[in-house]
């Protein structure tokens, strides 16, 4: 059995097939997988040579055999995969002469597409493609699934999940790292290892991209964080080109020498990738066998790091305090609740970005609100946040369906908030952690409530850790929250919490987390208490505080603590933050600019300040009509005349937006309703991912008080129609960049014409012109963003006139 030998014995993979196929006549651009059917004997021959060279695991020629990459009308994917595995089996029969146990691995490579949000492939579609080939491979008799040459954490997550959920086979996964230990999509070694181990792969590692020597430092890094057996499959050096041929020039002897070092470092499975041949493998096997401790391998060492990750970053818990930003949470926040109800994702994203800018390491995400579909919103917010921030996220929900859906589509190893000592809760949450991986916040509360004493909370922590162990969830993936109770009702609250923090750390050696600001509930000037308690908690062993990074008091505690504890080398960070700053908060100076001038010049802070001043003496609505609109009109006219350019137009728009926010606040304070806004839908059409033009139009339309429903990019015609009908919208704006996507624009217009004939459509985008717009049946072509604003204004003015006529 493979799993029994894994991590105990050294196992040899095969080497490259591409080069060998080219030697046998594979043409550039030809699909190599077709050779499984057309050139069966050649394929079997290549596999056989590897078995004869000493490979224990030989991979099927199915690297590109997934529906997204394998485009052929002549061959059926299933036939290819079935034949491919059969070819490996046949080669084993012919090539293994010593009766040793060998394995046929189903090789799964990347789809060749980038996943959403950066690309257009959905996680679900990637998953479906991998599932299909994994199931075919198992049916064909593969002994394991080997996912390799992956560059994207999200794609490999889809592949691993597909393999684990739909087959019973062992699953290996290896990625391409560059010399700096980075994936092409930016991920680093700890983030990749954390995610893959969370998904419970049986082995992981590195392949392709580099030669064995270049892989050494990356291997060291992998071994320093990985607990499962590590795979190393280098190329025969870096690719070189001569006379139009790609070649690799590390000879078998040299390759094998480095592979011996790689085995001695602790790799448990070794083989070759591009450019390696049966000769390389034979020599590697020969040299490795001559060394100690063969046939054993160096057993993998279990690591105790508590790590959460995103696609780009890993955050380690430990001595250095981790900041979990708490602001993406509707509790007690009127504006945030409204944003959730209005589906105002921009508002939520900005909360994320501003916390990141202020030093957060992880963002808590809580979108729980009665009357919203929490699961759908959670998934959407997680996806969107991951497209603007590389910080790891903490999925914060009590709804287990939302929790699972979010964990599934999350790109990385998430933090999960939370589980507690109630059996029912543990039964719900631990299976999810087991399946998707994650670091879970464990609240020390159980069926009997929150224990009053530190000892009681420590006992609950122990119970949770014990229960997790039954699932095979290591305590490094549990962070204990001993809970902070407000001192206004429990005078010993803080002392109990601090004591429990120390005891939990000492007794179980686990990391801890705390929602810090609870401590001051019901007291005046809460930041004072919060900041001091935060420092005390850090001193008592708090690994991560869930705090507001925009709170200057909290951040002062944080930077001071790091400086004092020598976690901030040479106090560099502290100095960067506070050098030149007086201890008192700076007084905001008046700029003296009028609101109109501030908008004309595109100065945000000045616009904010001027608006604040002006509302003291003037009605918001007159400010809009007498100051702001004239300023915007002036900028818009300048843009048309060619005296104002796009960046300036948008600076003014952004300044106006900030002033509007001030006025809006004022209006809601007075209880005055805002004027009813006209709704406009904007979308970048299906197949199109360039949305900057649409975003420009959005900012300007919002300036002119339109209620923009932004459907985003790559939007299907049906989605546009559905929104138009649901919101009863009279104007839809569509953008498309290329001729290939103008087709979708035409489809969308046709659908709207048929199903919602009273809806007008305006279009814009690089390849469009008036003629083209007429051809696809648009009502209006906006050659620039301002034209769309004018059209919208005209259209709705016309509508209002009509109403008055009636």
């Amino acid at each position: 059995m493979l799993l029994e030998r894994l991590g105990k014995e050294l196992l040899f993979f095969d080497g490259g097939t591409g080069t060998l196929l080219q030697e046998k006549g594979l043409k550039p651009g030809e699909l190599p997988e077709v050779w499984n059917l057309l050139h069966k004997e050649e394929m079997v021959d290549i596999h056989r040579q590897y078995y004869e060279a000493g490979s224990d695991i030989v991979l099927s020629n199915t690297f590109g055999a997934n529906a997204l990459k394998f485009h052929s009308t002549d061959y059926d994917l299933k036939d290819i995969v079935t034949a491919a595995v059969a070819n490996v089996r046949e080669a084993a029969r012919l090539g293994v002469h010593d009766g040793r146990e060998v394995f046929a691995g189903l090789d799964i490579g990347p789809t060749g597409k980038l996943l959403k949000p950066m690309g257009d492939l959905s996680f679900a579609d990637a998953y479906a493609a991998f599932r299909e080939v994994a199931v075919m491979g198992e049916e064909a008799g593969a002994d394991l699934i080997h996912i390799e040459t992956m560059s994207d954490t999200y794609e490999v997550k889809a592949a691993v999940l597909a393999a684990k959920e739909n087959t019973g086979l062992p699953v290996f996964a290896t990625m391409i790292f560059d010399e700096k230990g980075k994936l092409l999509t930016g991920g680093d070694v700890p983030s990749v290892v954390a995610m893959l181990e969370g998904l419970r792969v049986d082995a992981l590692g590195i392949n392709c991209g580099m030669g064995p020597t270049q892989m050494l430092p990356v291997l060291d890094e992998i071994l320093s964080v990985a607990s499962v057996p590590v795979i190393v499959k280098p190329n025969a050096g870096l690719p070189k080109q001569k006379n139009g041929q790609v070649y690799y020039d590390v000879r078998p002897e040299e390759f094998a020498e480095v592979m011996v070092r790689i085995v001695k470092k602790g790799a448990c499975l070794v083989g070759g990738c591009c450019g390696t041949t049966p000769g390389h493998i034979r020599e590697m096997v020969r040299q490795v066998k001559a060394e100690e401790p063969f046939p054993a391998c160096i057993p993998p060492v279990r690591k105790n790091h508590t790590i959460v990750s995103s696609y780009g970053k890993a955050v380690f818990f430990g001595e250095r305090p981790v900041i979990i930003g708490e602001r993406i949470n509707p509790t007690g926040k009127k504006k945030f609740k409204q944003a959730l109800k209005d589906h105002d994702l921009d508002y939520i994203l900005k909360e994320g970005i501003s916390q990141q800018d202020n030093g957060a390491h992880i963002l808590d995400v809580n979108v729980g609100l009665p009357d919203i579909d929490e699961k759908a919103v959670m998934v959407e917010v997680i996806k969107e946040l991951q497209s603007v921030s590389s910080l790891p996220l903490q999925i914060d929900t009590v709804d287990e369906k939302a929790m699972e859906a979010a964990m599934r589509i999350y790109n990385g190893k998430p933090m999960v908030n939370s589980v507690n000592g109630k059996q029912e809760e543990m039964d719900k949450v631990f299976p999810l952690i087991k399946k998707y991986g994650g670091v879970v916040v464990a609240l020390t509360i159980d069926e009997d409530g929150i224990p009053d004493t530190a000892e009681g909370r420590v006992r609950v922590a122990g119970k949770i850790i014990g229960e997790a162990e039954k699932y095979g969830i290591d305590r490094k993936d549990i962070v204990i929250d001993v809970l902070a109770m407000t001192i206004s009702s429990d005078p010993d609250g803080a002392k109990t919490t601090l004591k429990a923090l120390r005891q939990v750390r000492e007794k179980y050696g686990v990391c801890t987390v705390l929602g810090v600001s609870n401590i001051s509930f019901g007291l005046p000037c809460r930041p004072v208490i919060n900041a001091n308690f935060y420092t005390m908690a850090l001193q008592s062993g708090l690994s991560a505080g869930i705090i507001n990074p925009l709170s200057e008091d909290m951040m002062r505690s944080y930077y001071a603590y790091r400086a004092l504890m020598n976690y901030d080398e040479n106090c560099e960070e502290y100095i960067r933050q506070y050098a030149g700053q007086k201890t008192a908060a700076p007084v905001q100076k008046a700029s003296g600019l009028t609101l109109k001038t501030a908008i004309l010049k595109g100065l945000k802070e000045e616009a904010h300040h001027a608006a604040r001043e002006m509302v003291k003496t003037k009605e918001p609505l007159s400010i809009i009509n007498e100051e702001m609109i004239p300023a915007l009109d002036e900028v818009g006219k300048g843009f048309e005349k060619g005296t104002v350019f796009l960046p300036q137009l948008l600076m003014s728009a952004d300044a106006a937006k900030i002033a509007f926010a001030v006025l809006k606040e004022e209006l809601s304070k007075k209880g005055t309703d805002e004027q009813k806004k006209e709704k406009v839908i904007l979308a970048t059409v299906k197949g199109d991912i360039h949305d900057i033009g649409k975003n420009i139009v959005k900012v300007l339309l919002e300036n002119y008080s339109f209620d923009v429903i932004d459907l985003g990019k790559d939007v299907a015609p049906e989605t546009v129609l559905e929104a138009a009908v649901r919101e009863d919208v009279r104007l839809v704006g569509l953008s498309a960049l290329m001729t290939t996507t103008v087709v979708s624009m035409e489809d969308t217009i046709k659908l709207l014409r048929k199903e919602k004939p009273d809806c007008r459509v305006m279009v814009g985008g690089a390849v469009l012109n008036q003629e083209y717009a007429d051809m696809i049946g648009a009502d209006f072509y906006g050659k620039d963003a301002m034209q769309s604003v004018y059209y919208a204004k005209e259209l709705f003015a016309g509508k209002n006139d009509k109403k008055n006529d009636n």
Partner: protein
Amino acid sequence: MTDPRMNDGMANDRMVNDGMADDLMMNNRMAREALRYLGYGTQEADEDTLGMIRECFAQLKRTAKKRIVYRVFDLHLGEDGNIEIGNMRIESRSLSKNLKGCEKVILLGATLGVETDLLMKRYSCTDMARAVVLQACGAAFLEEYLDGSQQEIAREMAEEGYYLRPRFSPGYGDFSILHQREILSMADTARRIGLTMTEGSMLTPTKSVTALIGLSRKQEDCHIKGCEACQKTDCAYRR
């Protein structure tokens, strides 16, 4: 408002790598290109915009992960003007004119990486003016990178006795964008530099280029450069 030439590769200015003065010259040239993409034509920009452009270039230098991959293939030009490169067959008069007299052809892909897309998305959310400037700077930055890389390739090819033609990208002239898939696959861009495409043949990451470069034994004096060679003479972004 998106510039159609984000994905092209036709500028032929030369990059000089050494020396502060040269650096300054390069930055000025890139700034000029960025302004052109922003619709300034030859007009001067205000100090705020110029400041933002400088910041965006600095940010790109820190964030963008420039990567390039290329491979050389044999080229067969049929008498009917049809182009054959391995299994790929292209019908394009403008490309076949560009490649006339070439024996081989380079297929190349280059990208600024997903990191650049992430940065642009982020600013689309918080600061639209900066998002737009970053977009333009990204395009200029990519062009500059390609020009520099092309010089290196030219030196390499000169050793084998070949001269380079101006680079030519799918979607240009009558060279169909639908060849994008084959080019990406033949240059192995997904595996080597993380460059892929959407169903609509758009490159992802978005700040990326694919191009063909003809290799000929004869040095041709190519006066006509990319932008100026284009048939779309009413283009707002024309140099």
